[in-house]
Every structure is written in C-alpha cells, then in structure tokens.
C-alpha cells in the first residue's frame, strides 16, 4: 500500500532510526576515545584497538567464536538440508505438520530453557562442558532455521525436473547432487548464513553449557561488562559491526540472486 506520507510520519521514522543506531554508534565513537571511559571524549586515539590486538585471551576467544560459528553452521546446514528433504518426502499431511511443529520447538523456546535443558542433558551423558558441548548446542539450535530456509525452495521445485533427470537415466545420487541440490542452493546458502549469525549472536545457551575452560565472545563480554566498562570492548564492537555489515551485504546479495533467478525462471517458462 502506497499513499502520500506526511512530514510527521517521516520525522517519526527518522527518530526511530536514530534511536536504533544511537547505542551502536555511541559504542563505536568511544572506541576512539583517548580516555578510559565511555564519557568525556578526550581525543582521538587508536590505543584501544592496540590493546585489543595485544590481548591474546581476547583474540583466542574471537577465534573460538568463529570456529564454533563456522563448524556449527556447516554441520547444521548439512543435517538441516537432509531434514528438509526428509520432511518434503513425507506425504501424510498430519505427519508432516507434526514434524514441522517439532522442528520449530527450538526456534520458539526461550534461550534459557534451551540452555538449562541442554545442561541437564550433557551432564546426564557425562560429557564434559567445553568446546564440544558448545558446538553441539549451536548445531542443535541452528538446524531448524536451515530447514525453514530450504523447505520453501523444495516446495517450489517442479517435480518434472526430477522426473526428467530420472527418465534420462540419472540414478538417485545423481538426481540429488546434479538436480536437487543445485536447485536448492540459494535456500541452503541463506540457511547457512542464518545459522552462522545465530551462532555468533548466541549468549544464553552458550552461557549455560560452556563450563570453565572455554569461552565465546558474548560470554566474555558479559563477564567483562559485569566488572565495568573497558573501551577494548568498544573497539571490538566496532570490528563486529563491520563484520555484521559484511554479513548483511552478503545475505542481501543472496536474496537478490534468488529473486533474479526466480524472474529468469518465469521468463524462461513464459517465452
């Protein structure tokens, strides 16, 4: 719906955008402060970035966070794509609905519940808490979003594609790798991106299952923030903001690519 927008409406939007971005730019602004606090800007300095890059513990934690995010989103993408293929194959509508509801449980559950119940689970299994438990938790809560990203692509895939491939003598492995997966690729990439950001963003679940030896960025920021302000965290947040920007841009281009393909596909069909 498009109608004429009043000046007040635009002013309101501008205020909302300012409010949404103010805290983020505030953080970044003070990362360049020569002083030690998030107030009284006393001069431009990069010293907090220097501190950040000299802080081996922090660098190790940044590395941990990205390793967990990359591994968990990769594995979640594989399992989730298989799951979507499985759900797609279920013909009974009731069964399908049950599966979809089960799939969505972890998406709607509060983080605290996921974290606490996983903690009980890992303790019962006798698994030590650390890298393994964090990685498994991240895989677990990322799988449903991958399924939700891949399933719509499967549903819009025309079955004649698969039939044609089979008629031409492709075996089921070839059908999967040469026809279905390439068709699903945009959905799979989108799922991977979402899983990656879920993992980078997670605090609560990790906080429950991380134990003592292993830490991710969010958990580390939490424990440092409880001790007070340190502008090293500001420097870090400026870098994280840039990474988020890159990720969003990437995601945006995947979406554009999807739309373009859809249009081309339609064009091909009509003309």
């Amino acid at each position: 719906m498009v109608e004429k927008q009043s000046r007040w409406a635009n002013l309101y939007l501008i205020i909302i955008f300012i409010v949404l971005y103010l805290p983020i730019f505030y953080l970044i602004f003070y990362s360049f402060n020569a002083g030690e606090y998030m107030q009284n800007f006393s001069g431009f300095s990069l010293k907090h970035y220097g501190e950040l890059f000299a802080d081996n513990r922090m660098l190790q934690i940044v590395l941990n966070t990205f390793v967990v995010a990359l591994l968990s989103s990769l594995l979640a993408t594989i399992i989730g794509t298989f799951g979507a293929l499985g759900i797609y194959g279920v013909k009974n509508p009731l069964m399908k609905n049950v599966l979809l509801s089960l799939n969505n449980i972890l998406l709607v559950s509060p983080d605290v519940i996921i974290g606490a119940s996983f903690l009980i689970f890992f303790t019962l299994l006798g698994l030590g808490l650390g890298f393994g438990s964090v990685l498994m938790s991240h895989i677990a809560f990322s799988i449903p979003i991958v399924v939700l990203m891949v399933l719509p692509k499967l549903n819009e895939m025309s079955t004649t594609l698969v039939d044609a491939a089979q008629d031409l003598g492709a075996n089921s492995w070839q059908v999967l790798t040469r026809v279905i997966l390439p068709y699903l690729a945009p959905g799979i990439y989108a799922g991977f991106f979402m899983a990656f950001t879920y993992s980078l963003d997670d605090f609560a679940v990790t906080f429950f299952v991380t134990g003592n030896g292993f830490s991710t960025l969010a958990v580390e920021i939490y424990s440092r923030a409880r001790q007070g302000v340190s502008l090293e965290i500001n420097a870090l947040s400026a870098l994280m903001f840039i990474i988020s920007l890159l990720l969003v841009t990437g995601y945006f281009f995947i979406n554009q690519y999807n739309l373009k393909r859809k249009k081309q596909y339609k064009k091909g069909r009509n003309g």
Partner: protein
Amino acid sequence: MLKNRLFYFIPYGLWLILFVGAPIVLMFGESFLSMAHHFTFANYQNFLGSGIYLQMMFNSIWYAFLITVITLLISFPTALFLSNLKYKQFWLLLIILPTWINLLLKTYAFIGLLSKNGSVNHFIQLLGFAPQQLLFTDASFILVAAYIEIPFMILPIFNSINEIDNSLINASYDLGATRWQTFRRVILPLSADGIRAGIQAVFIPSLSLFMITRLIGGNRVITLGTAIEEHFLVTQNWGLGSTIGVVLIVAMVITMVLTRERKKRGRK
C-alpha cells in the same frame, strides 16, 4: 526420487530425539527431583506455596507485558510508515541490521549511556536538572529490553501491512471513509496476524531475558529467566530451576495459543 528418505532422516531424526525431545523430557523429570536426587513434589510445593516465587512470576509477566506494549506502540507506526516508503525493502534491512549486532554489545552500550556520568545524564544536566540514577532501575530494564525487541516486532507487522491489497484501501477512501476509519476498519484488522506474531516474538523472550536484568536491572528486576539461571548456575538447585523452567514453558505455550493465527472466516 526420494526412495532413500529414511537415509535423509537418520541425522535429522537423531537431532529431533536427542536435542528436541530428550532435553525437554529431562527438564520435566528433573523438576521432580530434590537436591539429593530423590523423587519429590517439593519443588512445585515450594514454587506454588511460597509467595516469593508467585510474586516473582507475576512480576516477570507484568514486565514482559509492559515491554510488549511499549514495543508494539513504537513498532506499529514504524511498520505502517515504512510500508509507504519508496525503497521499503532497503529501509527494512536497515531496521533488521541492529539485530545482527551481538545482544551483549548493545546492552553494554546502555551501561555507558545510562551510567551516573554517562551521556544521558549529561543531557539531563544540560537541561538544568540534577543527574539521576538511571542504571539499575526498573525503567532502564524496560527501556533496554524494548530497544532490543523493537525490530522483532516491526518485521512481522511490516510484512502483514505490506501484503494488504492497495485496492482495498482505495475502495475504503472511495466509499467515503476517513483516514482514521480506513485505519481502524481496514488496515488494523488486516494486519492483526502480524501483530499477533510480533507479540509472540517479543513476549516470550521478555519473560526469559536474564543478562539484561543482571547488567542493566542490577539484580533488582527478577524475571523467570533470571531465576532459572540463578538456580542452575549459582545455587545449583537444578530441581527448582527446572520447575521454574516448566512454568516458563507453560507460559510460553499459553502465549502461543492466545496469539496463534486465527482461522480465516468467510471465503479464502
């Protein structure tokens, strides 16, 4: 084509059993265990019997309610105005972008903004008032929680408004409806599903936020989530923690039932 469906289901099915089914069942079981791992109803008696926990639960629900209402009041006009913009998908992306910044970093920013010598207090002083204690108050907790939840409310409402057929609105004007009537009788009912989805997306997490209560609320505000964290990680009373977890799950299910998509009446 999908003869090997069973094969696809092996990893996914394992995940369903191990990470969706088992943990919830275990948590439910744990809620009936005493600290010495004996079967007991004591946790539930403790929760329902002592006024402290019930009070805490109602407080938590009240705070979540306030956060949801504030978020909704801010988000609905935003979504409505956004849907009128020319490059609306781009602006929507800008609304979503802050959600990709780690939650902890955003919360941390407010520690700086709201602290005793922080920028908000500087601003207050410029206006000629004495600096206020802003951090560690109920209001600051609600403010920060609402700030974090706003994009999650805007997104579903925007999507439902965006789907409204323009001709319906034009028809409403042609038939003599005023702006307000069009809003009240056409736009609002047609965006109801988006509002419900938004309430769901905000209310449930608001019940369970615990790091904001710690960092911004200064332990003054106790939500269900904070209580669970406390019992699991501080006092190590997993039984009682699980009981509160079960209560939180029940609250979540009730919220979802109340805000589920209504069956469309009439033709569709």
